């Protein structure tokens, strides 16, 4: 056992900390600041800040330097995730592009795609959306029906995507399209890179139960995309998608723990303010969820250890997803128990504004659905990790 980071990694932490403390105005770290900004302004402020961060060398931490990355270690990525949370840095505006598309392009993209996609993404000149889910294809992704019909050098695309993060801000969308009529299920799908700035693409915000609109819907009506704008082989999009999703299996658990633990401490503060912190039932519930949070931290160290040694975690990633998402949801259920009779009230006592916390509690209902629902993840753990029959 050795739970330390290397000297190089710790130097990186110091550098990053220094940059973050010099570049995050105190006002940005106050609760409710980002929620108080109009959507467009919020997005643009974060877009610019993130570009500056990338130019300072604090982006693409693990990417090779030839693609504009830092060429760092998995440990540096874990440190990056942790320090970003600690500093209350703004959320990335290009999450799907950075997490999924870029590593996939590096792995299987053409030279032209690598050049055209990665640099502009790092500088936030192009915001990427992901077009996977459809109204008829949620957990059963292979049921997707958006289709593309060949027309000269282009495909003409028709269909609808839903649960698209940043839909209204997106410039381009990597999306799964059926390009071979008659092919069934996992066959004949292509991963097309479609410009959203054209008359055939319409993005609409999707108002969620929380009232916010992180997600949107994207409608394709005779949208055009050159056949060359395909990631991986034409018709081989299912394999491209599986590769792409495998990049979620990184070591982000340490950052998540840092964030959730701070939220736990904030919930404890509320309990104290409401005089509920001595209630033995509340204490028992808080302790139970805290134990799960600490387990998430230990588990993140296990994951990082495996990643550093180049081991593919494979289906174990489903265990990580279940542990963090179910624990996060449990944490916010305890919040509801803490505020008790005032569970839906924004300001239960004067001066105690819980709007941001209520928003988190609402958000916690989504995390066990997106990115593979808990039920799908449990099937994967049972069948692929435990080896139970299908």
């Amino acid at each position, binding site marked *: 056992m050795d739970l330390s980071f290397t000297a190089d990694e710790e130097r990186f932490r110091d550098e990053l900390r220094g940059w973050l403390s010099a570049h995050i105005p105190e006002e940005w770290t106050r609760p409710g600041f980002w929620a108080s900004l109009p959507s467009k302004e919020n997005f643009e402020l974060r877009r610019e800040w993130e570009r500056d961060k990338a130019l300072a060398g604090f982006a693409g931490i693990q990417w090779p330097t030839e693609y504009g990355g830092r060429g760092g270690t998995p440990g540096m990525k874990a440190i990056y995730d942790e320090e970003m949370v600690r500093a209350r840095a703004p959320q990335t505006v290009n999450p799907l592009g950075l997490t999924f598309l870029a590593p996939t392009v590096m792995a299987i993209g053409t030279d032209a795609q690598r050049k055209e996609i990665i640099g502009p993404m790092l500088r936030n000149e192009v915001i990427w959306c992901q077009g996977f889910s459809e109204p008829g294809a949620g957990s059963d992704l292979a049921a997707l029906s958006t289709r593309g019909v060949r027309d000269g050098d282009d495909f003409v695309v028709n269909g609808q995507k839903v649960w698209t993060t940043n839909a209204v801000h997106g410039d381009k969308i990597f999306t799964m399209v059926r390009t071979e009529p008659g092919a069934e299920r996992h066959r004949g799908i292509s991963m097309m890179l479609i410009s959203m700035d054209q008359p055939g693409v319409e993005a609409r915000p999707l108002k969620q139960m929380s009232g916010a609109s992180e997600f949107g819907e994207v409608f394709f009506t005779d949208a055009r995309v050159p056949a060359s704008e395909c990631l991986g082989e034409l018709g081989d999009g299912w394999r491209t998608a599986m590769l792409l999703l495998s990049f979620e299996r990184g070591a982000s658990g340490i950052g998540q723990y840092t964030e959730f633990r701070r939220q736990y*401490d904030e919930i404890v503060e509320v309990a104290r303010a409401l005089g509920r912190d001595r209630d033995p039932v509340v204490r028992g519930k*808080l302790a139970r969820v*805290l134990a799960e949070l600490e387990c998430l931290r230990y588990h993140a160290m296990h994951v990082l250890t495996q990643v550093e040694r180049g081991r593919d975690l494979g289906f174990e990633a489903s265990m990580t997803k279940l*542990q963090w998402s179910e624990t996060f949801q449990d944490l916010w259920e305890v919040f509801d128990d803490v505020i008790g009779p005032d569970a839906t009230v924004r300001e239960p006592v004067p001066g105690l504004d819980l709007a941001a916390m209520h928003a988190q509690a609402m958000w916690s209902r989504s995390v066990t659905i997106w990115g593979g629902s808990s039920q799908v993840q*449990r099937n994967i753990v049972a069948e692929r990790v435990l080896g139970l029959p299908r």
Partner: protein
Amino acid sequence: MYFALTDDQRDFGAAVRDFLAGKFDTEAVRAVVEDPEGSGHPAALWQAMGEQGWLAVLVPEERDGLGLGMVDAQVIARELGAGVAPGPWRGTVLAAEAIRLAGSRSQQQQWLPKLAAGDVVGALALRGSTEDGWPAVEYAESADLLVVADNVGLRLLRRDEVTTRRLDSFDGTTRLATVTLADGVGEPLPGATSRALTELAARAAILVAADLVGIAHESLTRTVDYDRERKQFGVPVGSFQALKHHLADLHIGVTMAEHAVLYAAHALDTGSAADPDAALAVAVAKSKASDSAAQMTGAMIQYLGGIGYTWEHEAHFFYKRAKRLAGTHGTADDHRARIAELTID
């Protein structure tokens, strides 16, 4: 970052596991379970524990021990749990830890080599008092040397200084007895400060937690193996989502408990049990391991169906041992109360 066992530690665990599989399998355990009047302390197993260094793991090298740490000790504890093995291993290792942490030089000289070799059987009782005695002490009857908590610290008692009274326990993989003072008062361990007691209690909790993780892991493996084969309605019962989803959750729980025990053991090896992060880790590990083992062994009986409820099947060895250890050195609720103190107050 290296959050994992070393190859040596893995090999150590495999050696314990192989020994038990070959020389002390569940049929041997059954013989102990079905002889409740017996000592529950098979001589052949004890001899092997001494010879193979399982008892010497935490004893310093200058006292003829292996001088290893809690990460190594929890490897052994875990395999003993997986094998539902009887015998006074934990009591002996912890009595030696008490003497290492709080004993005088001469006490260490006198007892540690003997405890490490298995020449002397130890027992530890942290719950109880000089006046009322110490309840439900593991293998108190077999012990030559007992370390007990009294009102001020820790005390060494020899077998002839105490009276023991056997307690019926439905867990047949151990023997429990009440200990009271008879003739004599033994000798105090001079270094038994509250800090030493904290260290000792943390080590006791982690070795029990590791046993529980072993129980839970083995129970999960046995349940999955059975449900892959057992057919009802023409299909393996393990193909039903009602079982799959629960077993997936249990697997995650067991894995998290395993991580927590490893982290806590490492925290004790590298720092003080009084350090807030280590104290939290111990409480997390014991509460999580207690819950996981109780849930998993209960699920094993359920998902084996009728056979799991029979005396003939060994599922009840695991279930009953888990029930006992879940309450030993702090229940899950006790440890959650500690978590609350550390993170709320």
